[in-house]
């Protein structure tokens, strides 16, 4: 059973999860070939999967593995559209660190 836990992260939190999978909600600011730059309380480089179809300006939830340079190698992703409250998304990422007991075991 693939039940890997994916803690929520944003740009400032990625360093806590090197080599591990995370969930990150961010808005696409730039697309270059198969890499995209997402804004998630800071800039994050995402190495996209071939079928990711990123659209500039849209918010995505990316499940990806954190690389040593704090980029994300995407495993899965979902288009959340344009109308997402990023303050809430970033709050959730930070709060799930502070109160990780209901989100993931440290």
């Amino acid at each position, binding site marked *: *059973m*693939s*039940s890997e*836990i*994916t*803690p*929520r992260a944003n740009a*400032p939190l990625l360093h806590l999860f090197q080599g591990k999978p995370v*969930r990150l*909600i961010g808005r696409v600011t730039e697309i270059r070939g198969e890499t995209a730059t997402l804004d998630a*309380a800071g800039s994050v480089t995402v190495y996209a999967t071939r079928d990711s179809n990123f659209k500039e300006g849209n*918010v995505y*939830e990316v499940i990806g593995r954190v690389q040593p340079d704090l980029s994300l190698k995407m495993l899965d992703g*979902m288009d*959340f*559209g344009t*109308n*997402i*409250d990023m*303050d*809430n*998304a*970033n*709050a*959730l990422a*930070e*709060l*799930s660190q*502070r*109160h990780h*007991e*209901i*989100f*993931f075991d440290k």
Partner: protein
Amino acid sequence: MSYDIGYNSNYGGGFGAGGGGFVSNTYGSDGINNSQSGGERSISESKSRVRPVTIKQILDASQAHPDSEYSVDGVDVSTVTFVGIVRNVLNQTTNSTYRIEDGTGTIEVRKFVSADKPDSDRISGPQMGDYVRIIGELKSFFNNKRQVNGNLIRIVTDYNEVIYAQLEALALHLQTLHPERQGGTGGTHQETKMAGIQPSTRSYTNENLTSLQRRVLDTLSSAVEQASNEGVNIDIISQRVGANPHTVQEACEYLSELGLIYTTIDYDHYKLT
């Protein structure tokens, strides 16, 4: 860096709006009867409040002994709600089993199909990769495997709900662990100790209710029947509020969804929590 979040005021509405159907499906007679195996189910099980949780909280829930209720943060819980992604669907004759994952864990949710329209249920039902809102009863089996019997499985269309659902689970968790930190009268947002999270019931009370919903709450809080176990019949609430029973029923279902009131002996009787 701190985030001052006012997610209740932003998404309390969305939760309900996306859930116009959501609320009525949950407690509508159709939904309840069809979603239970035999339709024979003790009323006591439906009494309890709906608790927003993460899947990890379900997996971590404790049980005093194999037949007792599950406990989350020391509070008995039987009906839970959460949002997650469908990772697998298994269609069987009488039910569909969905494997749901929310980043904190994975759990199976079983939904019994309507006897009269099994095919349409499945065609319009959730597919792999969909984010879904689940409301269901927590069950365990002989091997201590946990499962949720889904009363409602609704496909999420506004993805703010994904974020909101986990913030709400966290707010409830903190509120349960630290009840003393709740704002006093709840009149203003003065209480920000809990990382900026307002205890959800206070905020709902203050801001996001329609005047009808407020009147229902006021009526219940002043009702003499509030002291009884049965609470107040929906027809009596309607008379006192002066609105038609159907809209009052909807208001009650919404308030019950928020955990402000709950059903007692049947779906026509309500009490304040």
